[in-house]
Structures are given as C-alpha cells and as structure tokens.
C-alpha cells in the first residue's frame, strides 16, 4: 500500500482473487488427473503421480506466499518483522523430514511385527501339539 493509488490497489485485490481462484482450480484439476479421472488409466504411471504431487505442493506454497505477502501486507512491513515471523518456520523443514522418515520406519516395523506374530502363532501351535503328546503318553 502507500505508493499505490486507491483505484490501483482495488484492482490489485481483484487480480489477487482471480489468481487464487485460478490456482485452486488448477490444483483440483491436477489432483483429479493424478487419480485418473481426466485421462482414464493415468493413475498407473508412478512418475505422473510424483509430478502431480510436487506440482500440488508447489502451487500451495505459492498460494501461501501470495496470501502472506499481498493480503497480509508482509511485503510492506519492515524486513526485520518479516524475518522474525518467517525464519522460525524454517525449523519445520527438519520436522517434516524427520517425522516422515519416522513414519516410513513405523511401516517397516509394523510388517516386522506382523511376521513375528505369525511365527509366534505357529510355535504356540507346535508347542500345544507337543504338550498333547506328553499328556497322552502320561495317560498311557
């Protein structure tokens, strides 16, 4: 604000509306493309799904940037203010890497536990059979 005239700043707001609505529509289109709604069978291609995913994340980050810098006027605040608010969010990058890695590891553990449980069930059955043998021999 400030350096723009009233009419100019109003125009800028409505351009922002069209931009955000347009980006949202593109996002929905991309998402449906990745799920195989636009072109049947497209969801079979792993590469496409990755590209769509990255595109969606990129567009969402762009929307976030636009909302913060234009609608919330961060562009017109002092640099120090912007940095004290924006820099701490960089900590989240590590949180995302660490926790997603952790989640992936849980998946591996779950499969391991499932396998172990199956083996345990097997040995318990075996054990019971042996006990039966033992009892029968004793009775005999």
């Amino acid at each position, binding site marked *: 604000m400030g350096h723009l005239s009233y009419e100019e700043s109003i125009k800028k707001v409505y351009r922002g509306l069209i931009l955000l609505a347009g980006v949202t529509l593109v996002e929905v289109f991309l*998402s449906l493309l990745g799920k195989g709604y636009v072109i049947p069978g497209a969801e079979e291609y792993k590469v496409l799904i990755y590209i769509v995913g990255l595109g969606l994340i990129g567009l969402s980050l762009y929307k976030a940037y636009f909302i913060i810098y234009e609608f919330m006027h961060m562009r017109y605040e002092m640099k120090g203010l912007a940095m004290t608010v924006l820099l701490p969010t960089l900590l989240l990058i590590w949180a995302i890497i660490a926790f997603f890695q952790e989640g992936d590891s849980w998946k591996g553990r779950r499969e391991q536990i499932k396998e172990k449980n199956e083996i345990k069930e097997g040995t318990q059955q075996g054990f019971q059979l042996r006990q039966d043998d033992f009892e029968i021999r004793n009775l005999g």
Partner: protein
Amino acid sequence: MATTDTVIEHEIQEEQDLWSGGKQPFKASYGKLMMWYFLLSDAFTFAGFLIAYGALRFSSPTWPVPDFVFSTAPFGIHHAPLIFVTIMSFLLIVSSVTMVRAVQEGHRENKNGVVFWMLLTVLGGAGFLMCQAWEWTNLIGTEHMTVTTNPFGTHTEDGVYLNADGSESDETFKAGESYLLHKAAGGGHGEGHDEGPHYETEVGDYAGYAVNEKGFVLRKFKVTEGEDQGIVKAEALGPAAFGALFFFITGFHGFHVFSGVMFLLIILINAASGLYVKRKNGYEMVEKIGLYWHFVDLVWVFVFLVFYLL
C-alpha cells in the same frame, strides 16, 4: 462514554511514547506485532497436527483416497469428487478478498465501506462453517465414520466379490481401489440401496460376508492374482487414524473459523458504532483481525492440500 474516551486518550498517549522506549520496534504497533507472533505460534500448532498426519499416513500400508471419500455434495449429488470442497475453498478465498477490501476502506477512514465489506466477510465465514457442518453430518450420519472407526478401506489385491449366499459374483476389483463399508442395519450411505442383497444384522460369519461388532458388513471376496490366488478373504476397516486426524484437524481449523467469525462480528459492531473513528489510526483493529482471518485462509490452503488433493 467517559471510559471509552479515556481509553482512547491513553492509547494515543501510548502511541506517542512509541512503546515507551521512544522508538517503535519494526515501525509496527504493539498489537499488530503481537498478532503476527500469535499467528506464528498458531502456525506451529497446525504444523504439528499436519506433520502428525503425514507421519501416520506414511506409516500405513494403505490410506483412503480423498477423491473417493469426498465425492458427495448436498442435494443428492454423488460421484462428484472434490467438487464440494472446492466450493468451500472458494468461499474462504472470497471472504479473504472482502477482508482486504475492508482493511483498505479502513485506511481511508470510510466507516460504511468497512462495515459493508466486513459484513460480506462474516457471511463468507458463516457459509464455510455451514458447508463444513454438512460435510461432517454426511460423514458421521450416513457414512458412519467416527474418531475411532474408519469405514473407508482400500483393496491390496485384485479379486472378485462373493454374493451374499457365498457364490461368486461378477463384481471384480483391482488392487488400490477403495470401498466404503456399509452397516447391516439402518441403510447404506444415502445412495438408495435399490433392492440390494439382504444382510443379517447379527454379528457373525456368513456365507458371503461377515458382520463385525460395530455392525459393519464385511463382504468376502476371492483373490484372483498374486500368491494368495484363490483364497477367500473379507474386507477390513480402513486405517483408524484417518477418522481421528480428519475430525481433529478440520475441527481445529473450523474452530478457528468460528472464533474468527465471532471476532469479526465484535469488531464489525464496534466499527459500526463509530468507536474506531475516534481512534484516528486507520481502523487498525480491522487490520489486526484481518491478519487473523487471512491466516485461517492460509491454514486451509494446507489442510486442503494434504486431506483433499494429495
């Protein structure tokens, strides 16, 4: 209005002292700066929730596909993936834009403009809340999703369904396809079960299906591919974390929208009563609640991304 006058006098005095240090930090008022820091801390709360969602989603072998889960809209619309939630997003974006307009009119000290655009913002927020109420009602009431139960499952193998009597049907499916479990009693999920098969309501194992303790019908199917080929299996509930994460995260966001609407209403009434005219600071309260309102829109960008798009 003696008290209001003294408050205003006090505030003007404080602005002159520039936070009493003689120099205003970051050339911003105390309230505005603290609103930014509140929003930063709130962003970390939301980030915590969303990262937990990501970690749990990564840890599950399957996850409900959003375009299957969110494909219903009011007035009996089915198989319309993501349409309703796109409308909800538009409502928030539009209300964000009207908020910017209210702040602009405030800078011009135009009282009627501020009141008009804030009123539109409140309507947008209330519309969003109504949409969310419908979405939750549909998920809980007709689709039987709760915090602990998630009826949206995913097939991990190709197969063919069995009929209720145990014979093979002609309904085939592929690995990765989603299904919604129905309750044995009390009808399906609103799609009008036209002469569908009759399921027993008692818990038990039947020829072509099983009914679990929660009353869900788990249809049986024969695997047609892979190492388990020919084995008959039954559908299972989807990952339970999905329901809890969905209701807690969208609920927490909805609570922000709700409190935002309440604060907007309070400041709307204050503005209409002429309170901010006397402060002569370009309707700074409107600017501050505007920051909060844009933040709610900002969070929705990411909730929309992880729950509905990816």
